[in-house]
């Protein structure tokens, strides 16, 4: 019996051991992976990115969770790594090894790209292989080696060679077509003549590996000498030895093709001793006057060495383009021409650069002015920090003295300068390259009613002055001493906000809203805040005075806080004594309202292209009247306004025109289709023709027009669906 028990126990133990180790035993290692690298070379002393494409060929279906890449020698220093599924990247201290741990991993049968920034050494190195290991274990230190060519060489650009092959010449009695191939992308020039002094040349444009150059107006039955010159983008020049072909006898127009095998193909290194100056580049076209359309620009470049590359830029040298036509690449004198195909009004910084074989670069700069329209500012939005300050329904912006107000606006007509004018004070605006919008900051020092004007100047010297917005600047809050009425300077004003979740009170984070909190009152005892919606209270403390605490107040929209407070000397504070605080909006008198001046007058006429085809005009509403909403695709509120409209019945939608100011019809069409707004009436006013007639400034703005084409109501800001129905029904 004890023996049986022992056997049972042994079997049971074995069973336990089997299951205890089964988890680790069932996990098979990655059985196979492949890797390839691109590119296969780096230039000496020039950091570059090598991308490793790792393919998971594991038979068991495990994902690759770990990749280790080891550099072949100290000549390849890894400085950075990133790639697919990346969870963590660790590079060792000397940059010889990188471990990439993956999140989720490379699934079986799929691949991941891993880009390593590598700094090569200063000497050319023949191809050397990187080691690549992969494992299915996230925490692994090593894995199986991946197969594939991981060789990367370090080369000197001048030491690269270009192979020229497959040279054929197809001749008639007056023409010759010379074709050849190169091992890398190169230019293709043919120098030819009846002697080996070559008195003429023909160049192909752009870089390619297949080349064809046609020589024309040749003499019949004549032996021509020619030389092919191909130059790659690194300035390496390949040149065949002098070769010849013979044109067909007069009257023979059939093409005869012969293969030419040159004696030698020489490759010239990039370094030219003694040449340290770049080519002289000259734009021969006169670009001083403005153009309505993009002109064809001509120019030339010359150098003591051969010129291997010409490029031009329309953005001051940030990005480069190849000229439409280039003659003479590979020689010391090059002619080029290009049409930059620019359509928008603007001042374009044209830069042309030419590179000689020694790597020296010469530049030529010019300004191309495209001027089709005078400058014109369109719609705008105002913001204080991250809070957009929507104007009143009559279009008046309400702000505080002493606070930075950011204004963002669109403009057409290619202005090179947009200035905001507040009395005699000018505020410059700058243009965003990404969005094309202009932005600037205005700070009102004095309370009162202001009209902000804007002055825009284009490259042709056209100047447009416009009224931008009516602004009610309310005075700053003041802290005074109760007994004397004098200002309390240096008092600390703090705003506290209730956290809606915890109901705890925290010091309001003014910095995130581009404001200071706490504030120290000025010499005249002033302070001010522009607070977003929320629940707040305020405290004021100063040495020798009783601390002032305001009542708790709630703001339902961003509001200026400028209440006045009185302080009393002493120290004892009655905790039940809290100060009243008023945060009401100022009343704007009728003569200060400028935005509604058109109300009651006839709607300015227009006829603009609609996204749906045809045109829409101010009289398209018919007897019922409708609403014209001026808007822009870049406005933060556009989604909100359109969602309000899309929820309406068709009978109302048909009476709504959305006019996009200073945006092209094609752009609006794309916006329309992408948003699925096919059932809305969208109209483009690319030139901003309605900006002045409709006195447009803050957008969106809605003009409700009755059946007699009379403007009944103007609302600035987003109009809700319910209000839209009410206003339309009342027309």
């Amino acid at each position: 019996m004890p023996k049986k028990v022992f056997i049972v126990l042994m079997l049971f133990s074995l069973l336990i051991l089997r299951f205890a180790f089964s988890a680790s035993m069932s996990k098979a290692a990655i059985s196979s992976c492949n890797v390839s690298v691109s590119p296969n070379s780096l230039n000496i002393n020039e950091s570059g990115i090598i991308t490793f494409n790792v393919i998971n060929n594991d038979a068991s279906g495990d994902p690759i969770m770990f990749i280790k890449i080891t550099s072949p020698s100290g000549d390849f220093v890894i400085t950075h790594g990133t790639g697919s599924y990346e969870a963590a990247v660790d590079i060792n201290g000397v940059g010889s090894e990188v471990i990439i741990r993956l999140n989720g991993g490379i699934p079986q049968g799929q691949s991941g790209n891993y880009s390593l920034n590598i700094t090569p050494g200063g000497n050319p190195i023949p191809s050397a292989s990187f080691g690549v290991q992969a494992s299915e274990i996230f925490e692994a230190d090593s894995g199986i080696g991946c197969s594939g060519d991981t060789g990367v060489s370090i080369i000197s650009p001048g030491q690269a060679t270009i192979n020229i092959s497959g040279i054929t010449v197809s001749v008639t009695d007056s023409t010759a077509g010379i074709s050849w191939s190169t091992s890398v992308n190169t230019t293709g020039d043919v120098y030819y003549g009846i002697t080996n002094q070559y008195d003429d040349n023909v160049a192909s444009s752009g870089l390619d590996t297949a080349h064809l150059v046609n020589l024309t107006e040749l003499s019949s039955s004549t032996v021509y000498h020619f030389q092919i010159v191909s130059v790659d983008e690194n300035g390496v020049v390949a040149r065949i030895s002098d070769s010849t072909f013979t044109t067909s006898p007069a009257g023979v127009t059939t093409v005869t093709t012969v293969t030419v095998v040159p004696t030698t193909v020489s490759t010239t290194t990039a370094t030219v001793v003694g040449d340290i100056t770049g080519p002289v580049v000259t734009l021969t076209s006169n670009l001083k006057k403005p153009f309505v359309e993009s002109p064809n620009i001509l120019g030339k470049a010359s150098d003591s060495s051969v010129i291997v590359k010409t490029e031009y830029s329309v953005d001051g040298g940030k990005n480069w383009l190849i000229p439409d036509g280039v003659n003479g690449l590979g020689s010391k004198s090059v002619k080029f021409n290009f049409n930059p195909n620019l359509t928008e009004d603007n001042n374009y910084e044209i830069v042309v650069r030419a590179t000689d074989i020694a790597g020296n670069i010469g530049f030529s700069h010019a300004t191309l002015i495209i001027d089709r329209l005078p400058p014109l500012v369109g719609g705008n939005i105002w913001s204080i920090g991250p809070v957009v300050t929507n104007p009143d329904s009559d279009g008046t912006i309400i702000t505080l003295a002493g606070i930075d107000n950011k204004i963002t606006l669109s403009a057409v007509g290619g202005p090179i300068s947009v200035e905001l004018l507040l009395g005699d004070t000018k505020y410059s605006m700058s243009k965003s390259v990404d969005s094309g919008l202009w932005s600037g900051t205005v700070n009102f020092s004095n309370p009162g009613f202001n009209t902000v004007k804007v002055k825009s100047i284009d490259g042709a010297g056209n100047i447009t002055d416009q009224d931008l917005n009516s602004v009610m600047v309310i005075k700053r809050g003041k802290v005074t001493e109760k007994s004397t009425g004098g200002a309390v300077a240096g008092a600390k004003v703090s705003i506290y906000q209730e956290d809606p979740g915890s109901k705890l009170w925290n010091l309001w984070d003014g910095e995130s809203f581009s404001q200071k909190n706490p504030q120290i009152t000025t010499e005249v005892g002033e302070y001010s805040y522009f607070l977003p919606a929320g629940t707040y209270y305020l405290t004021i403390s100063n040495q020798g005075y009783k601390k002032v605490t305001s009542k708790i107040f709630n703001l339902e929209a961003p509001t200026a806080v400028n209440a006045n407070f009185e302080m009393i000397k002493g120290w004892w504070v009655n905790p039940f004594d809290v100060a009243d605080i008023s945060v009401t909006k100022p009343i704007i008198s009728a003569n200060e309202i400028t935005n509604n001046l058109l109300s009651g007058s006839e709607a300015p006429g227009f006829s603009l292209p609609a996204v749906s085809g045809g045109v829409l005009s101010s009289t398209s509403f018919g007897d019922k009247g409708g609403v014209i909403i001026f808007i822009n695709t870049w406005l933060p509120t556009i989604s909100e306004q359109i969602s309000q409209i899309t929820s309406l019945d068709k009978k109302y939608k048909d009476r709504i025109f959305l006019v996009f100011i200073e945006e092209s019809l094609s752009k609006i069409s794309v916006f329309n289709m992408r948003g699925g707004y096919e059932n809305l009436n969208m109209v483009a006013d690319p030139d901003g023709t309605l900006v002045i007639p409709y006195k447009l400034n803050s957008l969106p703005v809605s003009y409700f027009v009755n059946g007699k084409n009379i403007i009944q109501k103007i609302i600035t800001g987003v109009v809700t669906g319910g209000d839209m129905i009410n206003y339309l029904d009342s027309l």
Partner: protein
Amino acid sequence: MLLTQFILVDSHFILSLLAALVFFDAWSANRKMKETTLFFGFLFLAISFVAQSVIIDQALLNQTNLGVDIATLIKNISRITGYAFLIIGQIVVPLQPIPTKDKNMVGAFLLPTSYKLPAIFLLPILAAVTGFLYLRRATIGLENHQKPIALGFFVLSVSELLGLSLLFRDTNNINLLNLIGPFGILWIAERVFLALAIFIFGRWIFGYLLKRFDIQLFMILTTTSLVIFLSTTVFFTYATLNNLTNEAYDSIKTDVGVLNYSIESKKSELITSAELVAQNSGIISAITSKNKKNISAIASPVLISKKISSLVITSETGAILFKAEDPEFSGGSLSENSLVKKAIGGISASGISIKDGATAPVTVVSAVVPVISKSKTVGTVLIGFDIDNAFTDGVKSATGLDTSVYAGNVRSATTFTASDGVSRYIGIKEENGEIKKTVLTDGIGFTGGVNILNTPYFASFSPLKDVEGIPVGMLFTGRPQVSVLQTAARSLQLTFLVTAILLVLSIAPSYFISKYISAQIR
């Protein structure tokens, strides 16, 4: 903050149950049915404190809780009833030396019809009246030993009076609010006075315990049960809070991983869309011939159907041939754009980039694919997708995550709304030096407690990298720290309720055991 609130919540529970125990002991000492009013008076007070123990401040729960409302109803009704029985008892039981008092005051007492506002006003008055009647019995009558009861009820009435502060929480006086708010000075003072009352009643009860063995035994058993239950509860609630905090960190780490995954998925999706264009049979000839119309016919439908923000086709040198989002645009080059350069080199790539927006920078997921003809790059397809609020809303609707996306350290999209529940503060800067260094400089994730707009959050940030692997933005997921306490509070409430029920259930066995043991000894 969390630990302090946890301690205060637990102290409330412990004190309430101790009070219940004291009154239960008092009931035990007076459970002869002939002393009916005392019997019911102390029993109801014990019940009321059991009910009070499971009440967690609703400010902590951040919402009205039916359980709390019911417990408050039970507490108020049983408390008032308890006081009423004691008062009646004091009135109807004649004083020993001078049994000549008027007994007609009973009819003047009315139970409140609403359990909340009128009831809570009655509590300190009833406690004080009870105390006064006991004092009367002790001073005018001969029962001097009942003085501690009177004192206990007077102290309890102060505690009940402080509890009235609850009614003033809607005040617009912040000083007052700081005094009477949840876990404020008055809240704590109310518990301190309750503790003092418990001490006084405890001493009084202890006198009885010394006199009767069976009661003594019964009390020992119930007190032991209470101590065990309270210790278990405190430990459990602490563990709950700790676990919830750890879970919050784990959860947001996972959440930011999910958000990262959604960005990675978007990259893959964009590469697929770009390949759709690049592998179109007509695109090579359209690019090489620079035929804008044909390029548009291929590219524009992809832009529209895939709801992509931008789709640019360039030549093999980076010259812009067509912008699908702005078809009339012409001219220009992207030759130095790092993504386009990769595609010109024949490599598909994706990454994050930042561009200017109207009011704040925009984070863009971009992907590029080369257009290959005969093993040679003839052009590129560059696609961009703006990560805006619509995208983060989409992630939220799919995963339930509240997230923010930062362009650099500036918030560019978010699901978090401001106090008004509508506004989203795009453009807010994250100025925390540790986060900026860890995420934007070192390019690694950060998880920890941070203040966002001065509100404490459990937060997790993850870097967004451009095609070169350089951090250009951040992903954020987080939860307000108070939300963990609110989650814990609901759990604590349930724990307290179960504990209170178990405690009540343990009374019967304790009673019979003590009865049995004392009988055995006798």
